């Protein structure tokens, strides 16, 4: 008898699965030509709205690139607080659900959702080609009117100027949440012991400092080539200081084989002899750990590393200094997390209300005092609570004549950015400079300039 019941159960399960299976296939033969995800966007957001409306709560989704529960990143933890504050304050009216991935999978997953017509109502994005991807086909909504409607825009430091990387044809498509600047962090004790009294301001000064540190028995620089973008950040600084014009390269008016690129890459090779021995295999975290464990004197990183450094070794905060990468003529690499809204969202008001929570005083104060990033609004924060290094970073940022984005996030496509990173790593690992740049040039010939 028992067996009979089981077999009945099984066959029902089977029939159910068959129905699904058949449903899956019934329109399959007509597939190839009909694959056009766009038309389903409205339908799907409509579906999502239906259950929410019946309860009277407007549900929105936010997609983010770090797990809010598992993270140790202070900025991500701050975002988690923001989400909780929003859900509590708007209880019964709005509710945000968070979809998270890790950074590596973030854009693939987001693109998959967009392609499936399930664009999240709100999503985080880096300005540059990553944002282009969503602005060009109209996936991201124009936020200008919302920003101008009630003085929201005026709370930002620099007004519309704060949105230069998010503006396309005079329309703003994303809201920056914080700014991080890439600087050189250094160990003040080691610098003192090596007899370096003034911070290097040009390339020769940088090399001299490295020499002195090495002579004093220290590893001058720690960097990660295992995590390609770390090395590529240094390469970006070197290219920029040689006057490489990415826009000109993208449009085909300049080449990767030009003298200034070659000279920048040679500088990369030149300084690489000061790296820690395991740089090629060390990941981002290991390279940073080398610095706060006082195994190396300098670290070239974004200011997001402050939280990690102070968190792992609190005693180190007082020994850690910051200076701007030398020889760049006052230009600084800056990166901002930005939020974009789906153009097809059924709840724009809820999304805007949600975004405002990220730029309100509580969140921005947290950004500076705990997160160690530069706030985007004109919020007053308690400098004594903020990590000591933030002040130095603010100085670097304040003295900067202009800023530019991460190199790999400023190129024609994300693949081009990844190719640049990989090329720089392979040159560091021993590929001759000319060969490496020639492969980059080839990639642009075949994938960028012919489009």
């Amino acid at each position, binding site marked *: 008898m028992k*067996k009979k019941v089981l*077999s009945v159960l*099984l*066959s029902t*399960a*089977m029939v159910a*699965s068959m129905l*699904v*299976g058949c*449903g*899956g296939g019934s329109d*399959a033969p007509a*597939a190839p030509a009909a*694959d056009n*995800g766009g038309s*389903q966007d409205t339908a*799907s957001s409509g579906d999502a709205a239906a259950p929410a409306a019946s309860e009277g709560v407007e549900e929105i989704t936010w997609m983010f*690139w*770090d*797990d809010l*529960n*598992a*993270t*140790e*990143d202070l900025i*991500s933890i701050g975002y988690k607080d923001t989400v909780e504050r929003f859900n509590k304050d708007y209880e019964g009216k709005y509710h945000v659900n968070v*979809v*998270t*991935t*890790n*950074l*590596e*999978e973030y854009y693939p*997953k987001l693109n*998959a*959702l967009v*392609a*499936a*017509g*399930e664009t999240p109502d709100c999503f985080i994005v880096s300005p540059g080609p990553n944002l282009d991807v969503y602005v060009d086909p109209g996936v991201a909504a124009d936020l200008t009117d919302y920003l101008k409607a009630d003085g929201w825009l005026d709370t930002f430091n620099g007004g519309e100027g704060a949105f230069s990387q998010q503006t396309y044809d005079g329309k703003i498509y994303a809201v920056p949440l914080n700014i991080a600047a890439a600087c050189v962090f250094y160990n003040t004790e080691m610098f003192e012991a090596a007899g370096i009294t003034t911070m290097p301001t040009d390339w020769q000064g940088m090399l001299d400092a490295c020499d002195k540190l090495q002579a004093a028995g220290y590893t001058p620089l720690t960097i990660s080539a295992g995590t390609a973008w770390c090395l590529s950040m240094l390469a970006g600084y070197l290219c920029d200081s040689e006057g490489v014009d990415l826009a000109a390269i993208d449009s085909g008016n300049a080449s990767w084989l030009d003298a200034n690129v070659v000279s920048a890459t040679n500088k990369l090779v030149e300084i690489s002899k000061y790296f820690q021995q395991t740089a090629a295999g060390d*990941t*981002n*975290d*290991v390279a*940073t*750990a*080398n610095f706060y*464990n006082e195994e190396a004197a300098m670290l070239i990183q*974004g200011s*997001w*590393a402050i939280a*990690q450094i102070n968190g*792992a*070794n609190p005693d180190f905060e007082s020994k850690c200094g910051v200076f701007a990468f030398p020889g760049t003529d006052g230009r600084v690499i800056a990166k901002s997390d930005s939020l974009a809204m789906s153009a097809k969202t059924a709840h724009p008001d809820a999304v805007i209300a949600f975004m405002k929570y990220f730029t309100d005083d509580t969140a921005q104060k947290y950004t500076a005092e705990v997160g160690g990033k530069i706030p985007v609004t004109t919020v007053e924060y308690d400098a004594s609570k903020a990590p000591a290094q933030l002040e130095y970073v603010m100085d670097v940022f304040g003295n900067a004549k202009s800023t530019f984005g991460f190199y790999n996030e400023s190129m024609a496509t994300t693949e081009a950015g990844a190719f640049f990173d990989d090329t720089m790593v392979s040159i560091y690992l021993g590929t001759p400079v000319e060969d490496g740049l020639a492969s980059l040039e080839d990639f642009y010939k075949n994938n960028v300039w012919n489009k």
Partner: protein
Amino acid sequence: MNTRKKKSKISTKIIYIFLSLLAVVYLLPLLWVIYVSLKDDKTLFVSPWALPERLMFENYTFAWTAGRLGVATLNSALVCGITLILCLLIGSMAAFAIGRMRWKLSGAMMTYFLTGMMIPVHCILIPVFTRFSKMHLTNSQVGLILPYLTLSLPITIFIMTGFFQSLPNELFESACIDGCSIYRSFTHIALPLSKTGLFVTGLMTFVANWNELLLAMVFISDDAKKTLPVSLSKFVGPYNTNYSQMFAAIVIAIIPTIIVYCMFSNQIVEGLTAGAVKG
């Protein structure tokens, strides 16, 4: 004769030393990962081989709850369990028709199913993904079960057909005389007599799907629905990674399999080998 015996004694010793060293190569990494998972992030890079000052069991709690390894284990069990049951049922039904019943196309049908064994999953990834996205089946467990089930079918059908063919004809004849229907002879004669076959194929299906990474990674984006192999990579944050918790996660991911393996190792090893031999 005596020298020969001595010689063989020495050679046996050498064989044992060699085998033991090899066993160390197999077990040491597994022990090392457990050991590191009990350290904390801060001392990890300073002294990776030093003993932990204090055993950090919270790495496990953290990986299990905040890292959602618990949910992932449940998801894996759910997806693999349902796939297993459906696969055994659907697979042995087809195998019964092919192996025992008489129809012209049975040979052709078998060949059709067998070609599936040569096809790498990568080839169907994109079409299945685009199709399922449109049907809103990606990011759902059903969307994962369907391809798992389909990819497990060829081997199931192949092995079960062999089993059904080896059953003696008389059994079915006498059942037929007793007025037993074809469905009943399938559920009451063929299936119970092929328990070994069901065990072997079930084991192969379950192990393969439990460890599957690619499909799960592409199809599932929602944390609450991720399976074990995919969840492992979530400790890599945007700017830093929780190393010791990642080690704890690796341990959590492999421990259930190791426990089950230790309990039934002989049956599992022999079952899987029998399956591979047939395949």
